[in-house]
């Protein structure tokens, strides 16, 4: 007796679907851009320039902004990589060893809620104006949420999956590579997504308040001169950076969790 194939879901061209789903985003974007331009022009105040003059500012300072962007992105990537490795690593260890979890849990939660910038003087004392001060700030901003998510991810592996592994005599290492890690991946990736936004914030704060470099320096300079156009121009750049970073993480996430049913993505 042969099994019957489940009826395939009605096929909708993905291009059409995404265009259909994207319309609220497109509409809100148009309203925002148009609103900004109109409001800026009608207010005619130096503190709220219209979008066109912000973009103009961006073009004028292009070389300076690109150089700053290079510095900032290097900081961001370095800080983020260190955070992911440490955050997910520590989370996995805490997930594996209950005692370690019990010992560290409250401190991780304290660090998660503490305003990360309070550690700035310490980093400044250690590294001064070096890049590592900023990397450390990014680390403080983005690591702890990944630890917390990873621990939860390991603890919420369905018990019946672990029992299945035991029933088939899975060695400990195989239990981890074949059951725990794949099962924990969606939640770990969700933590990494959250950490991405925090890392961008950490980068900017580090650059504005500790070692004054990169985009943070430009924001600080701009606000010192009450140059709203420059500050908003940098803001636009930072938003674009954050979007690209999130897109990259989302891309990796989608590759790793292809097996998830579409509705729970």
């Amino acid at each position: 007796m042969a099994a019957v194939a489940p009826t395939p879901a009605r096929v909708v061209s993905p291009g059409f679907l995404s265009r259909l789903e994207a319309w609220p985003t497109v509409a809100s974007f148009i309203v925002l851009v148009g609103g900004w331009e109109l409001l800026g022009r009608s207010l005619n105040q130096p503190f709220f320039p219209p979008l066109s003059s912000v973009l103009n500012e961006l073009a004028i300072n292009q070389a300076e902004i690109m150089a700053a962007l290079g510095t900032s992105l290097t900081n961001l990537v370095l800080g983020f990589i260190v955070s992911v490795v440490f955050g997910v690593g520590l989370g996995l260890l805490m997930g594996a060893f209950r005692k370690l979890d019990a010992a560290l849990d409250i401190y991780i939660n304290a660090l998660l809620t503490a305003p990360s910038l309070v550690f700035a003087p310490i980093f400044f004392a250690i590294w001064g104006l070096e890049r590592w001060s900023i990397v450390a700030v990014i680390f403080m901003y983005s690591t702890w949420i990944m630890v917390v998510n990873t621990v939860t991810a390991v603890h919420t592996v369905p018990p019946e999956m672990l029992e299945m592994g035991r029933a088939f005599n899975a060695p400990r290492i195989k239990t981890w590579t074949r059951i725990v890690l794949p099962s924990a991946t969606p939640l770990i990736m969700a933590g990494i997504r959250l950490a991405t936004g925090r890392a961008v914030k950490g980068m900017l704060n580090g650059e504005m308040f500790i070692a004054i470099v990169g985009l943070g320096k430009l924001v600080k300079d701009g606000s010192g001169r009450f140059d709203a156009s420059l500050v908003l121009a940098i803001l636009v750049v930072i938003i674009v950076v954050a979007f690209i970073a999130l897109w990259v993480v989302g891309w990796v996430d989608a590759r790793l969790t292809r097996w998830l049913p579409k509705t729970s993505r």
Partner: protein
Amino acid sequence: MIEIKGVSKAFPGRKGSEPVQALKDVDLIVRDNEFLTVLGPSGCGKTTLLRVIAGLVPHDTGEVLVDGKPVTGPGPERAMVFQSFALMPWDNVLTNVAFGLEMQGVDKKTRELKALELIEMVGLGGFEKRLPGELSGGMQQRVGLARALAVSPKVLLMDEPFGALDEQTRRLLQEELLRIWEATRTTVVFITHSMEEAVLLGDRVVLMRPRPGRIDQILDIPMARPRSTHLDSVESSGEFTAMVGLLWSNLRAMHSDVRRARQAGQAAATKP
């Protein structure tokens, strides 16, 4: 042969409450090549009994022997089929079916050949590259069955394997399982809460009762084999109806005993 002698198992109760006696003084022998079904109301320790045989939980007293050797943990001669299927959603059918062999360190080529053979046997030929999420419940449990059979176990342990399936799918899988079993005659311990299923599939039915979980009685099912070729006439036979009727009268008596015991308990508790 599986010998279960004087096995008891208690679980610690929730905070403050008494421990739960999931199994008390269970004696049971599962013969080689027999299809044994275990029936009883929920909470009577069926799953615990199966997990003890599987070596997934330690028992407090007594002994469990498989071919004379005491069970100290899971072993390759026993394979389990789960009610919730417990398939790995990130792996395709082929990898899922090969999982047991993979854990035994069998090389990829050999285990995939074996897995393909089993996929064919459970009627899933052509579906080996699909993910579990793309399959219906019935097809998923076929994968679960193939995964268990792939390790060539001496004993197949099945915990309400068709309990999560709809009526029609369940019928098809019962037929399929009987067909496979009648061809292979692997020893099976099959847990169910369906009287009809217990009679249809089993050589013997173990009837369990709750609080504490223990064996009430063991009944022989005298119906001839093979049954898979004419399930409908088996089900309409007088023997079948009589067996189900007998099981039902026992279960009903068990329920009224439980109710009486509970009322007696309440009466005692409300006395000043």
